[in-house]
Each structure stands twice: as structure tokens, then as C-alpha cells.
């Protein structure tokens, strides 16, 4: 039987600098704008005769060379607001004009599991729940620490605990005329059920791969444990940051991409070793790119960024185009995105997860061919 497609999302919080991640080293304008905050040409890991990766991304270049990494250029949306939360909200909700509360992956989870048969269809690894996953009534198991210590009222002695949890479930099951109370009720019940299921994942897990001892390394290890435990989890989410490099960007940005490259590389090595890589696609995105001209030490909020899609089912290479850096093509000093992020989502939703995209992203957007047929 064919395995169900799985999507892993790694959110780069804070606004990753596109131009120093995929460096347009052959374009003289890059050197004009980036007089201080630039990657020297001899350090760029060349992808072709125009662009190349940041030097800290060598492990990702290996994946790119294996044909399993798609680089999506110039991703964004019109009239970028340049505010972190607003921009992240837009990416999370696909609502550029109004403030949305429904996450795009929350809708995807609803469509994957409309009868809520599995409370761990979506699993989030982060300090707090991501809005992308949130949709009233859609359960998402939310792991804030280690999987190993995850459970409801573990402090109560075992025999007593069963009775207490029975009272707890009954109280949480009663439907009241308050939306917030009902939300709390459902969340409490889902939380208890999710913990019972997820606690088997670390027990079932075996791998020879060592993850780096970084926050993102540990999150991706948890994601691997859940994926490999075959619990029916289809969407997994985590984040890393902060990419908000207004100042002292060069060392900070390098460290961020070192941490991510090492962790992502370990993650896929782990999956491949355990024959669990063929149904996993990972998306890396950020809320916006940064301003074209540096500010002498870092870069300010901009528009238009780069996204990556990684995995065995991915047709590697470069998609869309690097936006023009000519001054007449910039908008308030920023790159003008030439590919709508909702098209990227549509490709993942339709060609990978086999869902109906327009109802999730609110419209028809041009897809790209980065998923193998």
C-alpha cells in the first residue's frame, strides 16, 4: 500500500535575508547595494553561474546536488507590510487583506481528517502553537518540550489518576454556551488523547544518526520520532530563529544557517536510513526577505524572499526567477516578489498532499512543477 504523503514545515522566523542565502554573486548590483553585509564571491557555494548558497549551507548543497532540493525564487505577495506579525499572519492564514484566524494547514488538516479520527494528524513542535496550524475544532498535538515527558496530570499517583482523569474528561466534554469554554474543553480532551498516542514514539524510535545539540536539531529529531512511529501524522511543524538581523548580520546569519543545514541534513539522513524518507516533503519559508541595500551592519525589513522544498519526492533545481535588483524595479527599496506564496502552497497541497487548494488558499494561483509525478 502506498504511504500517505507527509509535509514537514520549518518556519524561519524573523525574516531571512534572501540575498545572503541565495547570493546573486554574478550581479554587479549586489555588490553596489551590499557594501558591508555581503558574502565574498570566493566563499559563495555556486549553484550556477549566477547564484550560490551562503557558505554555511554546504550540507544543503549536497542535497541540492542529489536533485532533492527545489529553490523557489522571489516568493511573496503584493504590498508587503514589513511588519513581522502581520507578514507571518499573512503566510499563516493566506489573508493579505483582512486579519484571518484560520491557518492554511489547519484547513488542510480538516480536509485530511474531516471526522477528527486522529488527534495527532497534525503535530507542532514549538513553545507555542503556530497560527498556520490553528483552526477551531481541528486538534493539533503541541509538544513544547521533550516527547518523553509529555502527559496530563502525571503528578497524581497512578490508581488515583485514572479516576481523576475520568472526572476531567467528563467535565471537559460538556458543551456550554461559551465559545472560549468549548475551545478549552476540546483542547483539553485532544491534549489528553494526543499525549497518550505520542508517548509511544520515543519508545519505537531507533536510529544511528546523531542530531546536532541545537534547538532545531532536537525539534527535527522529535519530528522524526513521530513520523517513524507510524501514528498517521501527516503535517508536522517547527520553527527556528530569529532571522531579524537588523545589525551584526554576518555572524548571526551564518550561525542560523549552520544550525539549520546540519539539522536538516541529519533529519533526512535519519529518514533515509530507516526507509522513511520517500513520503516526506519539507518546506522552509520565512515571512519576508530583507531590504536590498544594507544599513552598514545588517538589513532592514523588506519584501520578497526565498523558499526551499526538500525531499525524495522533490524535483530539484531552481524555480521562478530572481527578482530584478535594478533601482527602477524596486518598490521602496525592496525586491518585488514575482511569485505568489499561495502558488507554492497550492503546489504542495494539490500535487503532494492531494487536497483541493483553492478552498484552502482562497483562490487560484500558479503552481510550480517541483513535485515528481
Amino acid at each position, binding site marked *: 500500500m502506498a504511504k500517505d504523503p507527509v509535509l514537514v514545515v520549518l518556519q524561519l*522566523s*524573523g525574516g531571512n535575508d534572501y540575498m545572503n542565502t541565495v547570493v546573486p554573486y554574478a550581479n554587479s548590483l549586489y555588490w553596489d547595494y551590499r557594501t558591508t553585509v555581503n558574502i565574498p564571491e570566493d566563499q559563495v557555494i555556486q549553484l550556477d553561474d549566477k547564484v550560490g548558497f551562503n557558505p554555511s549551507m554546504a550540507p544543503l548543497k549536497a542535497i541540492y546536488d542529489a536533485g532533492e532540493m527545489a529553490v523557489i525564487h522571489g516568493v511573496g505577495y503584493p504590498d508587503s507590510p*514589513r*511588519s*513581522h*506579525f*502581520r507578514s507571518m*499572519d499573512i503566510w499563516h492564514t493566506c489573508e493579505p487583506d*483582512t*486579519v484571518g484566524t484560520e491557518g492554511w494547514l489547519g484547513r488542510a488538516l480538516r480536509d485530511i481528517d474531516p471526522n477528527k479520527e486522529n488527534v495527532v494528524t497534525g503535530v*507542532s513542535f514549538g*513553545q*507555542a*502553537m503556530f*497560527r498556520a496550524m*490553528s483552526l477551531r475544532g481541528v*486538534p*493539533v*498535538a*503541541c*509538544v*513544547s*518540550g521533550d516527547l518523553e515527558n*509529555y*502527559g*496530563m*496530570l*502525571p*503528578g*497524581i499517583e497512578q490508581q488515583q489518576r485514572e*479516576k*481523576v482523569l475520568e*472526572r*476531567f474528561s*467528563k*467535565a*471537559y466534554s460538556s458543551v*456550554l454556551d461559551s465559545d*472560549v*469554554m468549548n*475551545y*478549552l*474543553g476540546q*483542547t*483539553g480532551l*485532544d*491534549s*489528553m488523547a*494526543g499525549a497518550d498516542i505520542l508517548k509511544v514514539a520515543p519508545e519505537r524510535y531507533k536510529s544511528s544518526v546523531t542530531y546536532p545539540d541545537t534547538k532545531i536539531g532536537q525539534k527535527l529529531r522529535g519530528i522524526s520520532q513521530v513520523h517513524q512511529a507510524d501514528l498517521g501524522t501527516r503535517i508536522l511543524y517547527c520553527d527556528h*530563529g*530569529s532571522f*531579524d538581523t*537588523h*545589525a551584526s548580520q554576518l555572524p548571526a546569519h551564518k550561525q542560523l544557517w549552520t544550525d539549520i543545514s546540519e539539522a536538516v541534513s541529519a533529519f533526512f539522513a535519519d529518514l533515509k536510513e530507516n526507509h522513511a524518507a520517500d513520503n516526506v516533503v519539507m518546506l522552509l519559508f520565512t515571512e519576508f526577505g530583507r531590504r536590498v541595500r544594507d*544599513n*552598514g*551592519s545588517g538589513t*532592514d*525589513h523588506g519584501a520578497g524572499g526565498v523558499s526551499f522544498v526538500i525531499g525524495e519526492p522533490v524535483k530539484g533545481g531552481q524555480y521562478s526567477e530572481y527578482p530584478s535588483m535594478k533601482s527602477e524595479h524596486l518598490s*521602496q527599496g525592496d525586491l518585488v516578489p514575482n511569485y505568489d506564496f499561495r502558488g507554492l502552497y497550492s503546489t504542495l497541497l494539490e500535487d503532494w498532499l492531494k487536497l483541493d487548494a483553492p478552498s484552502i488558499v482562497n483562490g487560484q494561483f500558479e503552481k510550480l512543477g517541483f513535485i515528481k509525478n
Partner: protein
Amino acid sequence: MADDIGLIAHLMRRAGFGATRAELEERAAKGYDATVEELINPEEHGCERADEQLLIRLQPGALLPGGQPPMGNVNWMFHLVNTQRPLEEKITLFWHHVFATGNSKVDNYDQLLTQIAMFREKGMGNYRELLLELAKNPAMIFWLDNNENHKTAVNENWGRELLELFSLGVGNYTEVDVREASRAFTGWTLDVKIPRLPYGRHPWSFKYLPEDHDETEKTFLGHTGNFDGEDIIDIIVQQPACHRFIARHLYNFFVADEPQVPAWQIEEPRDPAAVDALAASFKESGGEMKAILRTLFTSDFFKNARYNKIKSPAELVVSTLRQVGGEEVPRPYYGDEIAMQPTYMGQDLLNPPSVEGWHTGSEWINSGSLMSRINFTADMFGDVSRPGVQDIIARLKAKGNMTPEQLVDACLDLMGPLEYGDDAKGELLEQANAGGDLDWSAADAEQRVAGLLQLIVAMREYQFN
């Protein structure tokens, strides 16, 4: 006659972090309005802050915590739990929500604690003075890169957030205003570009560099002149949009959950008259926070807002600790076991996720955070050695042996008074019934009470303030 204890308890939950039963009774005897005055002017009533000398003696790392948690959290948590000036600490938390500054970038808890101490000192003073202090606060300057805002190369980060998040809100200024405000703050920087590693952290201080300040004309919100940062702040505090923005923040923090800040431009306040009243108080008093807070706490819209607001993780943790007691002295492991609790529930104090602060209200709740909240509070109230739990038990004992129904009612009363729905009460009664009447001579009597308290805090109602 003493004022209603339920109303006093509401005031103490919102204007502070709850209180023990003994404190509530004492305050009820003084009366509601007198309590409001004492909260607003604690120094005139002999109320002390937490004893920092004690903290430094027992947790010396909390004096200058450097860049690593949890010692910065230890310092603030000690203040939150032990202050006799709960509103002063609450308003400090309020400004930390609004002027969110985070260690993820500042990498210096010493400076963040200095900022918090400034909020503690000035947070109930005049808003204009506070904004001016904020503009000169080194942690804020570094957080929003005003040290990179030069005459020849403008960095808009501080200028934008000052308008968008700290005073006016989106829609009340233009991109040009952002640019012009930023120019006015050129030259407002930090003393010394600090070598932060490996030799620890040097104290930061504000420094004005006249040679790096843009001395040319600026046009900001319709005013033109050779403005400095202080002039920009003077123009800002005259704007009706500023009065409304701060009013709505106060309403959202103290009265009832509003939509998240980015939506304020689009969505009307849930109680426009209340926001109007607070904005009018701002205007009348010239931005005196004490006057605005007095308006707020003595209003009917505040008094009628009981248990309608989801506790923030800081509120949940601090109010639990103030009630159960036992954390007056910062013992070993205080950091990981106590001070980091709000972090585990999604509110990493001194390190908000971004300059926009935390998403609040029901967004505090997800399956992970709810579990952390329930597990922490149940552990605390299940510990019969805690003085606050002992106090509840002693007050119950004074009532003699009880039927299960009497036990449930008495516990809910002593814990709040809490207002629970019939369904939750039914489950509590079910649990109490399993042990029959409570007989204090039984060996497990105290443990039975603790078990009931644990179930009480595990109920949905307990998440509301």
C-alpha cells in the same frame, strides 16, 4: 460593612496577582476604594518591594545574569511573587507586553532587568516621561537598532515600532512619518560598542552623539521643524490616536481580551465606551497613568468583568505561587522549577517572540500549553506542605466535619471565591462523594482535600482571571 470579598478578589487578580484569603479579608474590611488607592500609591502605605538583598544573597547569579536563562527570569519572578506592591509589578508586566524587548537579540539579561526596573519605577508615572525613558533605554536602543540609526544612514526600526506598536497604531501615520521620526532619533545611541563575549557584559548607557544627529528640518504628522526625538514624542502624546491606543491596551490587559494588536485598525473595540472613557482620562490627566488606572479600576465596566479573561502564563504562575506560598525564599533549582514556568506555557518573560509581544486571550491556549498549565497548578495545590494549602485546610477544619457538598462549596469559596459552572461542580462533587463525608480524624483527610483542590485547578474555569 466590608465590601464584597468576591469583588475585592477580582480587583486583586486583575490589579495584581491574586491574594491569600487573609489578605482579601483584610482588604475587604478596608473597602474597595481604599484598596484601589493603596495599589496606586503603595509607597504611601508602607508597602515594600521584594527584598533584593535576600535574592542576591541566596541567588547571586540573579544580580547580573548575563545572557543565559534562567537567572534573569529568577530575578523578575522573585519580584512578582514577593512584592507588596502588586499593581506596580502588574503595570511593569503590562509595559513589557507593550514595549516588548527580548533576550533573543539583546543577549543581556542585565540590561533587560534594568529596563524592567525602569518600568517598575516609572510605569505608573507620566506616559510621556515613560516614552522618553524608553527611547533612551539601552536595551531598547539595541533591540530596535537605534544605535545603527545614523545621520548618513537611517535605520527605521525604532522609528517605525515607536509609531506602530508603542504609541499610535497602524493607520495613524504614513511611511514618510516613519522616516522623519527615525531621522529625529539619529544620534540617540549606546555608550561604547560593547565586546560582549567572552568577558561578560559591560553596563550599557544612553549616549547622545550630536555629530551623528540629523540637524535638518523634518515634517512629522503635519508639524515641521528641526525636530529631535523628544519633539517627536511631544507631538505623539498630543495625538488622539495615541490616547485611544494606550486606552485599548489597558482595556485589553486589565478588563477583557481584545483581538490581537494588528487587527485593531480593522476591528472596533468590544466596548467602545470603555475605551473612550480611558482615552478621555488620558487626555484630561495629560497621560498620568495613576489617574487613568483609577478611572479604570473604579469603573463599572471593570467591576463587571469578572472571570471573563484568560490568564496569561505569568498571571497563572504568579497567582498560584502567591496563593500556595512557600516561594518567599529563592531556594536552589528555583530557576528551572519556578522561574521558567511561564516559559513552558508559552510566555518566556524577558524574551517575547517579537517586538509585537505575545498574542493573548484564547491564543495562550493550545493542547501543549493547556497541559503545562494544568500540570503545574495541580502539582502546587497537591502539595499539602505549602503554607497556602495548609491555610485552606485549617480554614476548612474550623468548619468541622463536612458533607461532600459542603466540602466542594467551601473549597471553591476559599480558592477564590471561584465561580464554577454546574457541570464542573458536578464532577467535583462526584469526586468528593467517592470518599463520603469528610471526617478530620481520618488519616487521609488532608490528602483528600488536596486531591479535590487539584481537580479544581484542572477545570476549565480555573484558566480565567
